[in-house]
């Protein structure tokens, strides 16, 4: 029974997973050997996190091969995956804020002393040892509430390491860490590799991938593209594999005459979010903001609109200063903002469609202090027709609509204020391809009517196809301002993965 080739720790092949009508993963695959650190790369939305969640037992795959340590598995819960020997560091830390750091590390497997009592002293001691190994100073007794993102991430890492798992998956663990902390993490990761464990490392930073990993698998549009030894490839090739599609055809932006400057942002700073942000958007222009998740794109948009404050800098709309942290004044001045998560931020999903569209212009509809449903319906009708919202009746609740139509309702809601600047954050996330094109045509039309549009998108193809100009944000700074003609996927990705540690460390 001697097997010359040891069975890989993790094998996924042809894995697919859909959420409602959206296919998050169409054909995901990866093969991870013991004693190796395997990089998983791809654009935002390529399906990496979905696959991680399938491996972790958060989601169940719809189909495809999933083998762990030589056996077919199908985890029904995160507890199952954990018990099998899989540790996962998620992109967002998942801590219990009201409990101590040590309890967060050992929840569910706390050391006992006699009488099955939790041994807190032993727990603190073990936590100290873990932190020592990671080379960080954290008090295991303090509550997790109020910890910085970096510290939270370190606790996640310590937690995963202490699980003693055969497979450790790290979904962008370094996003919030400083250079020293990253080095420490890498040392620990190499130590685990040398013990014969398998590691999957997801990152957008090529420097880190080349420094740490031995193999790389590329995903694109929810599907497996290629796997190569890191030594036999280079950054250019990986980027090409990540992007690899014809961009122009998908999202045609009709050229519109570019007018005067509508939005002028100067030297905007917000501690911990973004720094020295300056840019302009002119009438009829679509400016795309590209960058990785967490780079600070949404934070900039929210500050410009006035949802969040900022420490210094100024925002001018049509030459007039827009006060800070006052969305109402921003709307009055002519701004509209379609936020990233329309269910959370833009749409009262339980309210009727008409009410949603009319909610922003309520003040104008009110007669003698009363707002009638008729007035709402009348005002909503015009906009719904203009945007071709497909719905049976405007008095239906907004939840009954598809994602694309929900997005149109949110747009209609804002367009009814007749803005001169429209900020859209991820306008087509979770929308099927057909409606996507409609939303794009709509944005293009609006630009043609002279509205200035600031569009944040994680989809490179969308940014490149739609935007007249692309601003690339990396770690809270604008690292590139690229015209449509020069905007190639490679140029944008390079700017988006650019590091600032050198400057920030001064």
């Amino acid at each position, binding site marked *: 029974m001697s097997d010359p080739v040891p069975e890989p720790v993790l094998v996924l092949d042809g894995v697919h997973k859909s959420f409602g009508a959206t296919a998050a993963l169409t054909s995901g695959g990866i093969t991870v050997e013991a004693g190796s650190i395997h990089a998983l790369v791809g654009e935002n939305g390529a399906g990496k996190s979905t696959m991680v969640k399938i491996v972790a037992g958060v989601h169940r795959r719809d189909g495809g091969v999933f083998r762990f340590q030589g056996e077919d598995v199908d985890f029904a819960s995160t507890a199952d995956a954990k018990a099998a020997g899989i540790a996962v560091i998620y992109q967002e830390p998942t801590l219990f804020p009201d409990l101590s750091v040590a*309890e967060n590390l050992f929840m569910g497997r706390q050391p006992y002393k006699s009488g099955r009592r939790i041994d807190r002293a032993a727990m603190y001691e073990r936590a100290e040892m873990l932190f020592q190994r990671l080379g960080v100073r954290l008090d295991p007794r303090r509550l997790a509430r109020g910890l910085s993102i970096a510290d939270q991430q370190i606790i996640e890492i310590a937690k995963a390491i202490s699980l003693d798992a055969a497979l450790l998956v790290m979904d962008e663990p370094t996003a919030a860490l400083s250079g020293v902390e990253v080095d420490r993490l890498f040392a620990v990761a190499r130590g685990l590799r040398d013990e014969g464990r398998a590691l999957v490392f997801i990152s957008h930073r090529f420097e880190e991938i080349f420094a740490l990993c031995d193999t790389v698998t590329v995903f694109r549009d929810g599907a497996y593209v290629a796997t190569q030894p890191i030594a036999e490839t280079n950054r250019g090739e990986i980027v090409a594999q990540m992007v690899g599609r014809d961009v122009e055809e998908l999202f045609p932006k009709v050229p519109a005459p570019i007018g005067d400057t509508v939005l002028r942002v100067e030297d905007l700073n917000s501690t911990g979010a973004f720094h020295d942000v300056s840019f302009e958007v002119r009438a009829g222009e679509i400016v795309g903001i590209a960058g990785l998740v967490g780079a600070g794109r949404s934070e900039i948009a929210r500050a410009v609109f006035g949802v969040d404050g900022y420490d210094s800098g100024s925002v001018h709309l049509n030459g007039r200063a827009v006060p800070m942290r006052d969305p109402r004044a921003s709307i009055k001045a002519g701004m509209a903002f379609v936020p990233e998560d329309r269910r959370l931020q833009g749409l009262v999903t339980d309210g009727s469609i008409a009410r949603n569209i009319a909610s922003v212009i309520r003040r104008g509809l009110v007669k003698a202090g009363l707002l009638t449903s008729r007035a709402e319906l009348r005002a909503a009708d015009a906009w719904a027709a203009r945007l071709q919202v497909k719905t049976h009746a405007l008095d239906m609740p907004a939840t009954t609509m598809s994602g694309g139509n929900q997005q149109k309702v949110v747009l209609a809601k804002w367009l009814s204020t007749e803005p001169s600047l429209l900020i859209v954050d991820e306008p087509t996330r979770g929308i099927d391809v057909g409606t996507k094109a409609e939303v794009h045509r709509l944005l293009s039309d609006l630009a043609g009517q002279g509205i200035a549009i600031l569009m944040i998108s994680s989809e490179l193809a969308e940014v490149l196809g739609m935007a007249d100009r692309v601003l690339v944000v990396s770690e809270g700074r604008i690292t590139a301002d690229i015209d449509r003609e020069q905007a190639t996927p490679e140029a944008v990705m390079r700017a988006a993965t650019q590091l600032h540690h050198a400057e920030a460390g001064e």
Partner: protein
Amino acid sequence: MKHAIANLLRTRELAVALVLIAAVVLTALKSESFVFSADGWRNLLVTPSMLMILAVGQAAVIITRNVDLSVGSVLGLTAYMTGRIFIEAPGTPIIVVVLAAIGLGAVLGLVNGVVVAVAKVPALVITLGTLYIYRGVFLTWAGSDRINASDLPDDFLALGNKQIASVPVLSAVALLVLIAVGYYMYYSRGGREMYAIGSDPDAARLYGLPVTRRVISAFVLSGALAGLAGVVYAARYGTVSSGAGLGIELEAVGAAVIGGVAIFGGSGTVWGAAIGAALLVTINRALPVVGISDFWQRAVVGALILAAIVLDRVLALHRERRLSIERDTRSTA
């Protein structure tokens, strides 16, 4: 000095205990017999025991970010059942009756827990529903009937007043419950997981904690303790009419909040809830003694709850500011 006071206030249990002691001392100054008489001493200890038992169960539920509004109805129903058993089957050992009441309470709690955990509807709504349903069952069962002291065996009624080494039996029962649940919440994995679930339910699921099971356990505990409280009610008051336990669920929630159990779960202790219950009951009894009218008695209870919430908020803001300053200085260092 200022720091010491702030630290003291941060252990809510101690702060509330001090208020309780102050209330007792002030009342005793006005009327000595409030404490220094056989009856006064006994009442001081016995009266809070029923609410304490309820508050301990309620605290466990609230810590998991839920709430159990049905406990008043469960208490009424089990109190009535206690009397009914003594009428239908005279000579039933008291311990059997107690276990039956706890069992019925646990079943009713199980219903709450299963519906909350499976239907994924907020516990506030579910237990508001079962509050009426359980009360309805009680009314249908009892009709215009009521349990009188004469229906109950003497040795059962004696429990209400009996003392062992000047500690009333019912108070000892409440204390035992408190110690057992307090121990569980502090020392066992199950208890800590309840805190984790209340602190962030989504994270708890992602972490792989048995969320459904723990939430159901909390409701079963609350129901069982409400059943025990029903027996205490019958023993203490001797009569059980259809109004038994009406509205006491809100007192239990209030006691937990006053005692420092965060209404959004994840923090606080059953000790705090129990001391909060003692404070609520004692203040209610003390105010008439010092000559304060009915209206103000209610208002004082309300003020206590509001004060507790405002204090929590102020301390939380204070802590947040301190932490963010700490973070900034660390990152620039």
